[in-house]
């Protein structure tokens, strides 16, 4: 019986001969089959994965040097392109669309001999916090199937939570990796904006989007990050910063300086138990010899509105390419006049939440409203950047809850988009500022659900972020 605990151990077992890539793949395929009702996967690449596992086993036995991700079984959120495979952002508008190329991140995983086992369900165009906005139906939280797994990368979180793959990729525009990780009790990392190439990641909001990683150990997440990160000629916004070997420098005995915001922990929307658990952890950190201080933060109530103005603006433009002309869903009555053709194709192809955000974004960019909304939201973004910079001039990390509540009951929030948006209060800050953030599954609620602690670090300081994560997790 195959059992996975970490990539390092798996590799040791492979070298020892106590398991094979094929055994691993077959184990996951059985698991996926047995949990189909969770609806985490959209498509499973069973034959390909088995074929690749056999090849890798043969290669390893022939004595060839294995890649860094040799036989590591990975799932991809359905917003990440993989050549020759369908990708749809869980939207009917990309029904049956096959990608002609692979995302840079995927190419780098494959170059290190990872096995892609399938693509994972998510909220349509990564817009949502429950994974209920999907053309393929909702995803269930494996710990309590009456609850949502979080979103938008719900399928990616459940795939790791339910042991359906070793690690998975998601995308995080406002918390879409950290929040489902929090809801599912696993690790979710959103790297610095521009750390991993966005080439091949279907855009929601270009200046916020970042590929993120789900895993069970900090070491696994770190290894994937160091393989995918770094310069890419196909993405002009990706950083050319050198990529450190994160996974090789996790251990430290350093004493860190943590900042936290009383405004966040005493906010009206936060679950009392979550606030208490985090306050308690803060005290423990002090006892362990770290510096932990409250920092004044008066921008909290502005960040969700600023986030939704800016992301929907970018989204309204990014999603214009889905027009029924070149690919994807086209109206069944293509003979109509051009404007009607667009209306019919896009009205039928996009889901409700996506249409809501396209309309909101179009509105805030319109002549006469631009300054009142877009320009002001940009000012908030700048203020937030300045404030964050100030905090990081004195501290190594900012501690926040990941979510004000544990996993919602299914359908609980669908009727109230504003309440849903407000639940993003702790996660959108990292995307507005562009800094790295991680959700660590440290706590469990009296309702039986897990929840996490969010740690944010300065831009491109993933080394410290992963070090402190490793410390906090052990």
């Amino acid at each position: 019986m195959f059992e996975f605990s970490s990539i390092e151990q798996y590799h040791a077992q492979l070298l020892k001969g106590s398991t094979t890539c094929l055994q691993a793949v077959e184990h996951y395929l059985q698991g996926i089959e047995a949990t189909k009702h969770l609806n985490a996967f959209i498509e499973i690449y069973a034959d390909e994965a088995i074929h690749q596992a056999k090849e890798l086993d043969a290669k390893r036995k022939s004595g060839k040097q294995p890649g860094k991700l040799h036989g590591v079984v990975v799932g991809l959120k359905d917003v990440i392109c993989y050549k020759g495979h369908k990708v749809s952002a869980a939207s009917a508008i990309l029904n049956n669309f096959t990608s002609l190329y692979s995302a840079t991140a995927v190419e780098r995983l494959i170059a290190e001999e990872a096995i892609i086992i399938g693509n994972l369900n998510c909220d349509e165009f990564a817009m949502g916090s429950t994974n209920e906005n999907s053309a393929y139906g909702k995803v269930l939280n494996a710990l309590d199937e009456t609850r949502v797994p979080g979103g938008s990368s719900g399928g990616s979180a459940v795939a790791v939570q339910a042991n359906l793959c070793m690690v998975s990729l998601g995308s995080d525009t406002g918390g879409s990796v950290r929040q489902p990780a929090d809801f599912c009790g696993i690790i979710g990392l959103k790297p610095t904006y521009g750390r991993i190439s966005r080439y091949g990641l279907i855009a929601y909001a270009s200046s916020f989007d970042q590929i993120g990683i789900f895993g069970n150990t900090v070491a696994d997440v770190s290894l994937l990050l160091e393989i995918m990160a770094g310069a890419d000629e196909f993405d002009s916004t990706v950083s050319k910063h050198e990529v450190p070997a994160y996974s090789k420098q996790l251990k430290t005995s350093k004493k860190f300086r943590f900042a936290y915001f009383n405004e966040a922990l005493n906010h009206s929307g936060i679950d009392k138990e979550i606030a208490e658990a985090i306050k308690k952890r803060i005290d423990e950190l002090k006892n362990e010899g770290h510096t932990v201080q409250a920092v004044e933060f008066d921008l909290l109530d502005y960040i969700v509105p600023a986030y939704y103005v800016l992301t929907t603006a970018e989204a309204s433009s990014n999603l214009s390419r889905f027009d029924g002309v070149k690919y994807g869903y086209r109206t069944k009555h293509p003979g109509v006049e051009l404007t009607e053709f667009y209306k019919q194709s896009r009205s039928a192809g996009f889901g409700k939440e996506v249409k809501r955000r396209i309309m909101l974004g179009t509105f805030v960019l319109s002549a006469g409203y631009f300054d009142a909304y877009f320009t002001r939201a940009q000012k908030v973004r700048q203020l937030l950047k300045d404030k964050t910079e100030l905090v990081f001039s004195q501290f190594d990390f900012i501690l926040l809850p990941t979510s004000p509540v544990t996993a919602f009951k299914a359908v609980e929030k669908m009727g109230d988009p504003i309440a849903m948006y407000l639940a993003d209060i702790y996660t959108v800050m990292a995307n507005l500022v562009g800094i790295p953030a991680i959700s660590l599954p440290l706590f469990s609620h009296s309702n039986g659900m897990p929840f996490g602690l969010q740690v944010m670090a300065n831009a491109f300081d993933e080394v410290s972020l992963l070090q402190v994560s490793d410390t906090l997790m052990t």
Partner: protein
Amino acid sequence: MGYFCPLIMADYSKYEVVIGLEVHAQLLTQSKLFCGDSIAFGAEPNTHVSPITLGHPGTLPRMNKKAIEFAVKMGLACGSEIEKNNYFARKNYFYPDLPKGYQVSQHTTPICKGGVVKIKIADQEKEIHLTRIHLEEDAGKSLHDVDANNTCIDYNRAGTPLIEIVSEPDLRSGEEAFAYLTEVRKLVRYLEICDGNMEEGSLRCDANISVRMHGETKLGTRVEVKNLNSVRNVKRAIEVESKRLIEILEEGGTIIQQTRSFDANENTTFAIRDKEDADDYRYFAEPDLTPFHLKDDFIENIRASIPALPEQRIKDYTDRLQLSVYDAAVLTEERSFSDYFEKLIQHATNYKSAANWMSGPVKTWLNENNKQPEEFPLSAKQLSSLITLVDAGKVSFSIASGKLFPQLLANPTLLPEQIATEQNLIQESDVSAIGPVIDSVLAKFADKVVEYKKGKKGLLALFVGEVIKQSKGKADPKKTNELLIEKLKS
């Protein structure tokens, strides 16, 4: 005219026509503005279309540095101010030939601001000021005439780098617009940043036209005229449209702000949309491209790479080479033609005859064979040896251009003097050779000699012509002339 046609008795002279041009020039880069696809014209439809050009999900633009360089080059050549901190913006609108649903352009920070293009009308120089030059990507092409029921789209052109050169409303007539566009076309070709081909659409022009009474300082309501596919059509469209506008005013009507299209066959314009229908393009900074900063040495390297431009060359040809303004203008029409001339005068020191050869036989051959100057088969050195042969009096110009030049073109490895010698075409300037011919001609036309001596000096030309004819073109006309005058004195 077989039917009654009401005449509008408009007094056109009361009005001043005000024109600004927007010129789009496709840049001669190897690849598109934001991806590696080729921009070659005339390929099979949809063959230069990567996922990036087609706006496939997940694709991102990557900046073509050459395009930035070309835009800066144009700006420097026009004396524009170069913007060092640039970013792109998205212009959002839906159209089938626009793959991403937005065009990446420079809305708020054009790469070049201001600048001047000089034109000349009837020896009067005029400065046309530029508002801006900015970079943007081209759209694909909608083909409405390939299929009876469908519009077909060719995305090959989508993403081709363009600069848009926007002039101030400084032009006052179709003629000035013609001169301006000709000058812009000449400039982009000199800079080798655009082939200037209006028929293939690599240079396109829209005209903003308004009219007002002379002396009025406020601009009239403007009309934008599109679909101007030749320099001549720009002039025609401006003339016909300004006439239409004046007639509206003369009849007491009101001009509405419109976009109109020029129909070259009917020589008329027709409305395509009113201003009220104008789109809200919802511009915002393109988040997929980082702002780019131009360093001083980047700009200075481009400045250093700019060749001598027509204005400078004309000045040099008239001042230093002492050529006429007309000759200088003909020589500088095309950069490669002018470059050839400059190589030629490194070998042939008689500038005037070099210029004559260029505007005469060389230009005629290029026109007749529909070739570009760079395709001219003779090296400047070869052509110069032919010119030197004429200047030294060894062959006449007519022998050189009529007999030697075609043979050289057919076989560029031959040496002009060798052909002339072998074919016995070397001109006689030796008295001992020409003398007997002169004697025989004067004997043959004894009666004319008498008339000459009585004062009919015009007969000299007849004697010269006859001598050259009898010598089969070999007699040097100048020498013959001298000898004849001498002999006829006695």
